[in-house]
């Protein structure tokens, strides 16, 4: 394998990971504010269909992405309303929505199956695209990839470097304390849950209009649960989450390459990789394995390793809020 091939593979890994990166950022924002949106799998499916159908019917990619964002936002709004106003279990509502989104997409998508449709065009950035190695990987992509990359940086900066981001995190960490200091916790939770949901919707359209063009039943099935697991792996940080999404994409790409080289190994072994990885990675970051591992690591490595391996969820994640 020569270097051009390798560069092409890295470029395609980044493209394949872009929707996951977007969904992971959206869910990270929502969970940081204290709302678990467990509906991701159904929400991705229905928004992928909505994005594809809207773009096909109107001929406008932008309307496709907007329709998808609206679907994702509505799903998140239902979760937020159910937990923040009606004080119901977020996990239960999210689970039911995940199932419902799946069935709705199967039913409504029956007339859109395997139709040719519009797709996001490639858009190479002048000058930057000529940088050796990095140019072809990062800058000969399309708007979805650039959006995903910018979103990671913007989300990180917003969460950890702005006052609004601090208030967002306080709503998820210590809502009672934030409330007594005048932070409108419930309002913030609504806003960021819906914003996160809209991003998940955009991720759905990123599949059906760019990365996995078109629609078929169960088009993105499984990816929502993987995104939720990556948020945990990412320790509720957009940077680590994006890294997780890219590593996931890379592992899948590696499995595809290996499968071509070793056709005698059953295909099923390669399909099992994402799920085995999910278990392994969650065990690794759970702390039960990380803590003894860190204790044995050389002192110089301990700090960076801890940053990579350990993370606690926002303290009030999924908790109801007593604000009256």
């Amino acid at each position: 394998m020569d270097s051009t091939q390798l560069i092409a593979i890295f470029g395609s890994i980044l493209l394949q990971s872009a929707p996951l990166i977007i969904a992971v950022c959206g869910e990270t924002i929502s969970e940081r504010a204290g709302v678990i949106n467990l509906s991701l799998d159904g929400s991705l499916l229905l928004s992928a269909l909505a994005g594809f159908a809207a773009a096909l019917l109107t001929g406008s990619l932008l309307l496709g992405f907007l329709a998808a964002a609206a679907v994702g936002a509505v799903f998140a709004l239902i979760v937020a309303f159910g937990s923040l106003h009606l004080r119901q279990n977020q996990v239960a509502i999210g689970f039911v929505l995940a199932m419902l989104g799946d069935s709705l997409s199967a039913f409504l998508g029956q007339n859109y199956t395997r139709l040719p449709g519009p797709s996001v065009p490639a858009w190479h950035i002048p000058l930057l695209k000529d940088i050796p190695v990095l140019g072809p990987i990062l800058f000969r992509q399309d708007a979805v990839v650039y959006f995903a990359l910018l979103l990671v940086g913007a989300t990180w900066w917003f969460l950890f470097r702005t006052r609004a981001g601090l208030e967002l995190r306080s709503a998820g960490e210590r809502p009672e304390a934030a409330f007594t200091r005048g932070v409108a916790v419930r309002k913030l939770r609504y806003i960021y849950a819906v914003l996160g949901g809209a991003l998940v919707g955009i991720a759905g359209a990123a599949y059906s209009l760019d990365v996995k063009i078109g629609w078929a039943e169960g088009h993105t099935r499984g990816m929502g649960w993987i995104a939720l697991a990556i948020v945990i792996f990412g320790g509720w940080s957009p940077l680590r989450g994006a890294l997780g999404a890219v590593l996931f994409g890379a592992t899948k790409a590696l499995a595809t390459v290996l499968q071509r080289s070793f056709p005698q190994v059953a295909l099923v072994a390669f399909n099992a990789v994402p799920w085995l990885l999910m278990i392994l990675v969650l065990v690794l970051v759970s702390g039960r394995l990380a803590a003894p591992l860190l204790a044995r690591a050389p002192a110089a490595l301990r700090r960076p390793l801890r940053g990579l391996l350990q993370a606690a969820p926002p303290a009030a994640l999924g908790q109801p809020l007593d604000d009256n």
Partner: protein
Amino acid sequence: MSLSKTRLERVWPLLPGLAALLVTTLLLLAMGTSPVDAYSAMWQGAFGTSARVYSVLAFLVPLLLAASGLLLTFKAGLWNIGIEGQIIMGAVAASWVALRVQLPSGLQIPLELLAAMAGGALWAALAGVLKTRGGVHEIFGGLALNNLAILFTNYLIAGPWQPPEGGSFRGTQPFGAHALLPLFENSRLSLLSLALAIVAFAGVALVLTNSHWGLRLKALGQNARSAFLLGVSSNREMLLAMAVCGALAGLGGGVRVLSWFDSLRQSISGGIGYLALMVVLLAGFRLVLTPLVAFFFSAVLNGSITLQLRTQLHSALGDILTGVLVLLVLLFGNYERVRRAFRRRRSQADG
């Protein structure tokens, strides 16, 4: 103009059902199908003939088994989403015995059913150990294990267990007649399995209402810390609840291969585990309601399969009907809670 409060309160439980019907009716109209025709096809599909009713009951068996198991895990505060994989591994274990072992008729089927329970229990215990030892939340461990179970089934069907005439990728060769459950009047219903499901549900009900174990699970589910202070070993209780739930789900999987089908198929469960979660959520974890809701779900699902055969409309319509119903009941089912939420909002707006 407005209904008096007590009247509204009285019709309140019916509203989610009506709203769910409204959603599916709108979907049918959008698809250009007459809702009356569609609903009557669904009704016919569920109750039209006695054969259809047997089919509803046959589908009910694994659903009720899984839902009974979930009553235990929910009581312990666990979200056993991995139940889908536990059904599948039960089916795989039963198929292994059916394909590989030949015993006198009185032993064959009991051994298959025991294997099914062991397969389900093992897969559930794996999710349990991942939680107690590995710190992996049972939702994610369970989902990963579900997908691994599906892939394992596909591997068996296409590989070691493929029919001698070559793999069709759809299923193994049919098991011998000696290995299958006796069926009732040419239907897919095994009365033995129905009896087992009823016994299993009664057993779970008994455990939850009248046993010390039920009490310990309840303590665990309500507050892990106070359970610990009471001397309840949370890890052991959790694992036990998972394993028993998995055994019941696995039994359901065994019933699928030994009566609903006659071989191991690709989508051997086809989402029964997820459906069972919806059943228990709609029943609000209440014992008496669980079998009734399971029966209702089974009827809707069978009806929507007939609908698909007759009108080409996707059978997911049935899942949409039940899904909207569960969602609305979860959100608005408790009248008092809804009233309080809106009254609070109004008083905030006033104040």
